[in-house]
């Protein structure tokens, strides 16, 4: 039995909120640098080099990469042998509160979404997803998710007969409809199967994967590759100004589903792909 104090969780979450907002992942930065070499549009290359410059400034000066410091999406993977003393969710929420205050991050959460829309002033509540796994580790991943790309995400309950092509068409349509609004180049999280809400969850979780690592199932990896090529053929380019780099990667997660269903969720991630992890 591993004992973990709520205060340790708060501390970790506060630190991860700030790190995620200031330091772009190595894999994302490398992908932007690679795209700079292959992008055919001169303006597209200009944009990519500014984004790389932005990452340098943000890390150096501890400034947010993007002013939209997002909704704090927190993934918890709790080992069955872990015992937490204190209120877990309150500890995570306090960590977000502290991280967003200490880091001078933007507070972008409002309550009463269809009426008063009053800012909660501390970027809480976070959105928390919890999974119980074997073992005695507590893994915390914090993903600040900006609204720009999130707002362009889509869920479709396809018919089984729509099949593989139906999935491809949905992703293309989603990226095309978004245009520059989702801040390409994108990382496309794709969730196939399960039920409506599960498809969306696995699509978002797919964004935690190391960039451009293919799905271990060759059939799914093939789909990822085909979709990436077709998305880049749209010509939307960096920030929608036109170009050949509209997406850096497609991460697809697949699970079994109902005989009558084909749920397909597309969760878009902008180029400011932010997530940091810690293990307690």
């Amino acid at each position, binding site marked *: 039995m591993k004992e973990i104090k709520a205060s340790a969780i708060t501390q970790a979450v506060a630190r991860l909120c700030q790190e995620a907002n200031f330091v772009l992942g190595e894999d994302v930065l490398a992908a932007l640098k690679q795209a700079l070499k292959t992008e055919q549009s001169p303006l597209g290359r200009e944009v990519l080099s*500014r984004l790389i*410059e932005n990452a340098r400034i943000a890390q150096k000066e501890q*400034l947010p990469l993007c002013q939209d410091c997002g909704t704090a999406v927190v993934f918890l993977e709790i080992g069955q042998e872990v015992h937490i003393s204190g209120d877990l969710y309150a500890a995570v929420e306090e960590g977000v509160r502290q991280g967003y205050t200490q880091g001078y991050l933007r507070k972008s959460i409002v309550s009463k979404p269809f009426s008063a829309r009053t800012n909660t002033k501390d970027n809480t509540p976070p959105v928390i997803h919890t999974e119980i796994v074997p073992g005695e580790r507590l893994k915390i991943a914090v993903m600040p998710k900006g609204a720009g790309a999130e707002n362009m995400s889509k869920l479709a309950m396809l018919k089984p007969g729509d099949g593989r092509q139906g999935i491809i068409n949905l992703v293309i349509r989603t990226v095309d409809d978004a*245009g520059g609004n989702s801040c390409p180049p994108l990382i496309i999280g794709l969730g196939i199967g399960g039920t409506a809400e599960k498809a969306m969850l696995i699509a978002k979780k797919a964004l935690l994967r190391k960039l451009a690592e293919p799905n271990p199932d060759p059939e799914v990896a093939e789909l990822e590759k085909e979709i990436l090529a077709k998305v880049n053929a749209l010509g939307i380019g960096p920030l929608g100004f*036109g170009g050949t780099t509209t997406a850096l990667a497609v991460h697809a997660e697949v699970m079994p589903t109902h005989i009558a269903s084909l749920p397909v969720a597309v969760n878009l991630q902008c180029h400011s792909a932010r997530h940091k992890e810690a293990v307690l």
Partner: protein
Amino acid sequence: MGTQVLISGVVYTARDAAHERLIQALEKGERLPFDLKGQTLYYMGPSPARPGEVIGAAGPTTSSRMDLYTPRLIAAGIRAMIGKGSRPAEVKEAIKKHKTVYFATIAGAGALLSKSIKQAAVIAYEDLGAEAILRLDIEGFPAIVANDVYGGDLFAQGKAKYQKGKK
């Protein structure tokens, strides 16, 4: 369209909530927090400034959420807008008709863009927090002409140029 510029001078920030209030004030004939005539709007809500700094990260938000209000504000005197993403036909028409311009800037480069902002002051709707109207003094702020008086559209033209397959 497509011209890259560096903008220096005064701009006013306004997002959804501020636009809603400005339009309501115009409709009721109330005094506006600043004279719209000849001014530039920047669709932006910054992260808080660290002590001693002018402003936090300050990149643009999605312009399309302001489309509903934009033709009215252009007719009332707004000269230019800076944001992210494309605008629809009604906004492009208003831009042509009133000889204004829409600039897109480097979306997601919040840290980089903050460096071009030399002064920032809340001038209205402080209760909106990050969505308050700020008066910004900017210098060498990078932007690109996205929609011009000739009906040019950077997003449409860029995509058409690099699109592969069916045209």
